[in-house]
């Protein structure tokens, strides 16, 4: 008989304890990775939401909520021509209308109004590019996000007006994946918002003095807010910083909870076997060998936990991505492209991240073993042998 065989026999024969132990470890891996990765993913989505507008200074209505990424609730008179004259720059007025009334019988779609002539020149859209089809040639043609699963040539009716889908946008990884691009004037008319826009974008590098521009806008139009690149970055940092802190707290909490569970099982296991270890010590096993025995058992249980935990994390994350995609409309891998979900998870559950989990779990296993083993070995063999 080898000592390692003894370890395996213990794992096999103390089945309930072993199952509880590696399930506890697996659970801690799942909660830790799901929380950490979900929040990272959420932060990526947030960053993607801000990303398209990073070259622009925006004018929005005061009080617009930036948490929604696009100010669909904002609606003010288009003052573009006045600003163009005053500052000798050209702006891009945009109107966002939410699909709350299910104009397209689909949820989570934003209708974006932008002058049809500008669509192919607007560099944000140009950068995303068309997956297929072409940019609208007249105001009755529209372009849609790729994840709406609409094909070019399809006819779509919005408020009893018929539109022809001329092009599909490429994957953008943000709200453009679920957007319908309509000519600005048509959208304003359809939704009774003639002359209204949600924001006006100005190329930051075309503004000679950004401070003057900001002050002038906010003084002249007291119902408007000029959001500069710096302000957008601050808003983004505030949101991502908050969610990262929250993620850190939750993942730490999950690790601490799982760790307490794990440690309790180890302590109970070692305490329960105090007499057994004392018999071995009486027969002549060294304290070091007793420690090796306990640590080998804990490490094997941790390893089994890792083998179970990592695939469960993989599956859990896939499910989260599917449901988050469905409910938020930001990352929307469809059910028919399941391999894409796994690709998506693989991007998040990287070898580095897995290695980090393995190191954390094995380190915890080691630390968890040291204390109860030390306490057990500290006790006298004679006293321990008296335990019934």
């Amino acid at each position, binding site marked *: 008989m080898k000592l390692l065989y003894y370890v395996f*026999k*213990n794992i096999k024969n103390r089945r309930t304890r072993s199952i509880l132990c590696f399930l506890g470890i697996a659970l801690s891996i799942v909660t830790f990775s799901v929380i950490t990765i979900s929040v990272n993913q959420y932060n990526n989505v947030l960053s993607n939401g801000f990303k398209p507008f990073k070259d622009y200074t925006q004018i929005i209505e005061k009080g617009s909520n930036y948490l929604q990424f696009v100010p669909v609730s904002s609606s003010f008179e288009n003052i573009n021509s006045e600003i163009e004259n005053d500052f000798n720059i050209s702006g891009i007025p945009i109107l966002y209308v939410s699909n709350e009334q299910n104009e397209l019988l689909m949820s989570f779609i934003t209708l974006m109004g932008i002058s049809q002539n500008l669509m192919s020149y607007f560099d944000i859209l140009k950068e995303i590019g068309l997956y297929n089809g072409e940019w609208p040639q007249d105001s009755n043609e529209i372009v849609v996000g790729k994840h709406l699963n609409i094909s070019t040539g399809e006819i779509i009716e919005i408020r009893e007006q018929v539109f022809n889908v001329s092009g599909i946008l490429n994957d953008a990884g943000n709200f453009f994946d679920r957007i319908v691009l309509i000519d600005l004037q048509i959208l304003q008319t359809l939704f009774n918002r003639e002359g209204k826009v949600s924001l006006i974008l100005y190329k930051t590098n075309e503004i000679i003095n950004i401070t003057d521009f900001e002050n002038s806008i906010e003084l002249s139009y007291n119902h408007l807010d000029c959001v500069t690149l710096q302000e957008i970055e601050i808003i983004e940092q505030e949101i991502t910083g908050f969610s990262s802190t929250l993620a850190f707290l939750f993942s730490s909490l999950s690790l601490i909870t799982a760790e307490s569970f794990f440690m309790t099982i180890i302590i109970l296991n070692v305490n329960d076997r105090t007499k057994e270890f004392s018999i071995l010590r*009486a*027969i002549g*096993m060294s304290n070091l060998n007793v420690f090796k025995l306990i640590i080998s058992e804990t490490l094997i249980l941790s390893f089994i936990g890792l083998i179970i935990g990592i695939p469960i994390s993989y599956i859990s994350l896939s499910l989260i991505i599917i449901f988050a995609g469905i409910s938020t409309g930001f990352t929307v891998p469809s059910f028919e492209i399941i391999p894409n979900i796994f690709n998506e998870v693989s991007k998040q559950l990287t070898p580095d991240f897995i290695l980090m989990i393995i190191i954390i779990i094995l380190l915890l296993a080691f630390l968890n073993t040291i204390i109860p083993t030390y306490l057990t070995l500290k006790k*006298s063999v*004679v006293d321990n*042998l008296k335990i019934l």
Partner: protein
Amino acid sequence: MEKKKDQIIKLTDIRKSYMLNNKEKLEVIKRINLEVSKKEIIVIMGPSGSGKSTLLNIVGLLDNFDSGSYILGGVNVSNLTNKEKQKVRLNKIGFIFQTFNLIPTLTVQENVEIPLALQKVSQLKQKKSSNQKLKIVGLEDKLDKYPHQISIGEQQRVAIARALVNDPPLVLADEPTGELDYENMENIMELILTLHNIQNTTFLIVSHDLNLKEYGDRVLYLKKGVISET
């Protein structure tokens, strides 16, 4: 260092006391002097609380003593480190406990193999030696049984086989028949005698059971920490 050729144990002026909760000192062993020759069977009798087990634990290097000296197999073991004591226990001493103290998750054969595994003996030799000892104790057909699957008498036989599997020169037995009925007691003691005759092992047996008197080459009495021959 004095060394008598046939002497295995020499205890000189051994004292051992415990501190009680009220900080009073309770002297359990009072100046014990004991010499045991090789191949002897010594039975130490005494009532509960007389210090028998404490004495056996001192001889087995499981417990420390306050003063005196202890020579085991010609070597002074009074001031050994824990690691050195562990090595002596592994190579020189076999233990038989009242409650058998078998490992519940190991089979009969695996329990017997433990001392050999700790001595890093080859697996082939482990099997051979354990088979041999289990045959002597009459359990050759129960090798793969677990302790809970065999009778109490058989469990004590396994414990005896384990104590003797690596042929230690000294075996210490603490109330070896304490858990057994009369018939099993007789069987176990006969077995100890048989093994003693085969291996020439020295046995130091402590018990309060007067029936064991007849099995000892010498019978000693321990009363209130003092040893005597009457």
